[in-house]
């Protein structure tokens, strides 16, 4: 059963169309990766799904009856509990906030004003599973990029019960932490949380996801990962196409492949 149905979605910034006519659907328990070059509108699409940006055309239907569309209000009522890890990020440099304060803020649901024992437990277990429990009293802004990313993921975990939206979760992380992050997300998916992830890392996308959406202003591909692997698009994206920003002459993957 599909949990999100996206129909003929078009989104623009200041009259410039960024995403046009994108349709796809996500079923409960899916692991969808959105891939595409820089500036192809992945973040814009995700922000539209989240109701942060109004689409010009088309609509997004959620299985709980919510919709994001031109007519509806951008801030609507979620029944699904969703988590969100924004793209690395426009947060302010000098914001005074401890790790604990930030992670706890993920547990605020629609009714509560104060944190009860239950919320605190949830925050602590999220921090524990990401290995940041020992830095919970530190100031967020003094942490390294990888630590900050894990704090924001912990906050997203506190908010999520059904769907987790991740915008380039591994950007700027070292390989070891990246691997941990992927394993972590995989575990979440295995316990039934639907994952929607934007990634530059096509190899990881192919390894972990079960559906791929390839964006390039309009939709180039949507289907299962197995089907995607057979397309030319995938081959091109992995290698040799000079106008794909990430696969130029300096690209490690491309070098490796051309040597083989």
């Amino acid at each position, binding site marked *: 059963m599909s949990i999100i149905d996206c129909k003929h979605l078009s989104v623009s910034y200041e009259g410039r169309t960024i995403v046009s006519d994108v349709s796809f659907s996500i079923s409960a328990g899916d692991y969808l990766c959105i891939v595409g070059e820089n500036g192809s509108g992945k973040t814009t699409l995700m922000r539209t799904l989240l109701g*942060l940006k109004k689409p010009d055309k088309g609509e997004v239907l959620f299985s709980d009856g919510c919709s994001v569309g031109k007519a509806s209000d951008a*801030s609507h009522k979620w029944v699904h509990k969703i988590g*969100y890890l924004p793209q690395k990020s426009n947060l302010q440099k000098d914001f005074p*906030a401890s790790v604990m304060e*930030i992670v706890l803020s993920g547990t*605020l649901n629609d009714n509560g004003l104060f944190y009860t024992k239950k919320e605190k437990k949830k925050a602590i277990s999220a921090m524990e599973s990401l290995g940041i429990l020992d830095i919970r009293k530190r100031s967020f802004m003094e942490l390294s990029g990888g630590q900050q990313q894990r704090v924001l993921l912990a906050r997203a975990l506190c908010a999520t019960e059904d769907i987790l939206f991740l915008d380039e979760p591994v950007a700027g992380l070292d390989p070891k932490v990246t691997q941990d992050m992927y394993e972590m997300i995989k575990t979440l998916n295995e316990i039934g949380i639907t994952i929607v992830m934007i990634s530059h890392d096509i190899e990881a996308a192919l390894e972990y996801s079960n559906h791929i959406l390839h964006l390039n202003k309009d939709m180039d591909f949507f289907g299962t990962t197995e089907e995607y692997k057979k397309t030319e698009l995938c081959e091109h994206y992995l290698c040799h196409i000079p106008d794909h920003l990430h696969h130029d002459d300096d690209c490690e993957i491309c070098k490796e492949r051309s040597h083989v």
Partner: protein
Amino acid sequence: MFRIIAEMLSYPFLVRALICGILLSVSASLLGVSLVLKRYSMIGDGLSHVGFGALAIATAFHWAPLAVSIPIVVIAAFLLLRLNENTRIKGDAAIALISTGALAIGILIVSLTTGVNIDIYNYMFGSVLAIDKTSFWISIVVCIVIIVLFFLFYNRIFAVTFDEDFTKATQAKSGGINLLIALLTAVIIVLGMRLMGALLISALIIFPALSSMRVFKSYKRVTISSAIISVICFVVGIFCSYTLSTPVGATVVVTNIIAFLIFFIIGKIRIRKEP
């Protein structure tokens, strides 16, 4: 010194100004943390000028000052918030336009009608005499409401201030928080303006938060410390203003500047010690 304090407390208007000022300082500084962090400081400044314009008009036409200016400033707050969210219009330029515009209109109306009298002078630079019995009780009630609302919504205000997108995306009722902040700010500015002066009231909002952020690194500590700094600076300020016969508003702002410098230095020393 105790003699001077006893002397001050024997004047009912000074006691009123003191109590009112303390409550105003607490509410202004609590809101200030959010405003500074959301880069809304300029909105506070813009609103105080709008407030001046509104008060000037009310005085010229002999209308009740608070009843006229609170709604006008609240509407201006919503407008400025909208402008700030709209990426196409340069937010800061729009604020400058509105605030200088309101100031100019206010001054024009005043000079065409009553002329620059003592009321107008007081609106610009503040006066301890401004707090009569009615406005005293209004201020007390409103400040207490603001402080209670702040504590009720503390966690949500933090969430929206830290990361508005995340909060909007994951929580249904986040939209109201920005409006709440704008509304409370507008009310505080109008109330505080008569004591502190239209030109100085935004200092009461901005300075304590900025000082606290030099030293403290968690939101809770910054909030608590802002409230404490703000009250201490106000009390010291009003005491100095009485002994030196200087205007309250300016004196309180100067004590806040001194507090900022002290916290700035403490912050620098801390950073040097840590690594």
